[in-house]
């Protein structure tokens, strides 16, 4: 598999605190890589390191297979990044901000500027200064700036934080569009798991500066077990029935229970009925990304 970004045992230490503790990560080409972790787990620190804003204390990373510091500066032109807040000049309009970035990159003309504004939905903002933009507009302008040099790798740090529902939908559509239509590899750090599960093709789970697991969306789907959730009136009878049938189950509440494995619903309902237990509802459920994450990392205070 071809990787856009790989990190190998990267450590970033601030005095006695290790923000990154031997982190190894692999972002495949063409993927939407969901970088998942609690607040303070080291997501933004890694993004700062790969963006060149900070230097790792030890370890190495490569972009498009390039490792040397000097060449990394050059190769970074192929990537765009929005690190935490979007990097924009508040006293300039969206168009002026893009012009400024075109100049920084030494692009010969402003060709494609209108297309970029249209892509991020800012074609109609006119001369309005960026400091008066909503958070969603600022995020989109930040992405437009990151896209100025036609990068094929885009790094977005918490892009949906603070956005309203409409803004979240627009951001999701934009990221999918960039990935599918422009073949841009996207790495998104987030702790909003529900939203990430709608986008990501690959996941990296990080905790306390260490990579806990890297997994593709397909593998995750296979790993997430299916179950049937029952709402019943006699939990004691349910437990007895499950033991009799040899089924794995977990009691959710006094009335709800999840039953795992390949189950014949007819047999199950008849067995429960024989034990004088009535089923008031029954639904099929998939283990969500959130459940998977909680099982993997454990329920921390900020998760």
């Amino acid at each position, binding site marked *: 598999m071809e990787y856009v970004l790989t990190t190998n045992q990267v450590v970033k230490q601030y005095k006695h605190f290790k923000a990154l503790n031997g982190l190894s990560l692999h972002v495949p080409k063409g993927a939407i890589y969901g970088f998942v972790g609690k607040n303070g787990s080291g997501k933004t620190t890694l993004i700062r390191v790969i*963006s060149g804003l900070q230097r790792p204390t030890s370890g190495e990373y490569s972009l498009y297979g390039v490792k040397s510091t000097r060449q990394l500066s050059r190769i970074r032109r192929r990537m765009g990044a929005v690190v935490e807040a979007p990097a924009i000049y508040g006293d300039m309009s969206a168009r002026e901000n893009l012009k*400024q970035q075109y100049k920084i990159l*030494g692009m010969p003309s402003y060709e494609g500027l209108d297309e970029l504004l249209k892509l991020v939905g800012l074609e109609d903002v006119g001369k309005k200064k960026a400091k008066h933009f909503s958070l969603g507009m600022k995020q989109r302008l930040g992405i437009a700036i*990151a896209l100025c040099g036609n990068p094929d790798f885009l790094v977005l740090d918490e892009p949906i934080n603070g956005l309203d529902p409409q803004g979240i939908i627009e951001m999701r559509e934009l990221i999918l569009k960039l990935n599918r239509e422009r073949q841009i590899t996207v790495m998104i750090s987030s702790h909003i798991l529900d939203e990430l599960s709608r986008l990501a093709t690959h996941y990296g789970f990080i905790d306390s500066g260490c990579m806990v697991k890297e997994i593709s969306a397909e593998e995750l789907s296979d790993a997430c077990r299916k179950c049937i959730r029952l709402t019943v009136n006699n939990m004691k009878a349910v437990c007895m029935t499950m033991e009799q049938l040899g089924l794995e189950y977990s009691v959710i509440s006094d009335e709800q229970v999840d039953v795992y494995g390949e189950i014949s619903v007819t047999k199950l309902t008849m067995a429960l009925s024989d034990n004088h237990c009535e089923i008031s509802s029954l639904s099929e459920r998939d283990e969500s990304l959130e459940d998977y994450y909680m099982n993997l990392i454990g329920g921390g205070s900020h998760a």
Partner: protein
Amino acid sequence: MRNLLSAGFHRLVHYRLFWITLIGYVVICVIKVVDDYQISTDLNNEFTIDGSLFNMLPIIGFFLAVLTSIFLGDEFRGGPIRNKIIAGYSRNVIYCCNFIVMVVAAIVELLAGYLASFIMGLALGGGYSTNGIQIVVLIMISIGVVVVYSALFTAIALVLGRRTAAVTTCLIITGLMLFSAILIIGRLEAPKQISDMYLAVDGTVTEEEPHDNPLYVEGTQRQVLTVIQKLLPTGQALRIVQRKGSLDLLMYSLIVIVFVTSVGMVIFYRRDNQ
């Protein structure tokens, strides 16, 4: 580097505060020329253009402190400096480009002030009391002075990385430098000997024999104060106001520029950016 400079100048030209500080400095220079003209007229003295030309130089530091710290502070405030690093520019190149842009801005403000003072002086019929070569020398030294200011303020803004902190620090340092320069020049210009004078009730004035001035500094202390005065941009500016100064002051400016810029670049290179 050329791209970064082009981007920097493009931003400067569209930066409102640049024009506000430039126009503000020009207006103050013109007001000072008119004020000098009125004083000369009132005292029946000859009004000269060169006598007013350099009078506002000591305060240009305040204008440059505000402009440089806010202009460069904005790079950190919204985070656009990150775009430059991600775009592959080294920190040293980013530092140098910012410094060059601020130097050009400072020289433009200085020369705009001179031009406005000259035109106003000419309009008021002013003559000259200093020869042309000395005026050119003073203008060159004053360019050195504003480059020192730019080096200092660029270093502070890029090392601190916070706009408000940079503005406050730059203004305080400028004030302290001006205050120090006034004190130092005051000590250096103190006469070696003084004589006490007494005014009697009947109006007669008695002057005592001259004796040594306790505030007069000499020896090593005098040499040290002289060097400090020459190293301080405010010290040089106050000398230029007196129309004193030779090209050796440019060497002192160069020393400060190289030192401050080197230290600033090293710290900026090492710092982690958010």
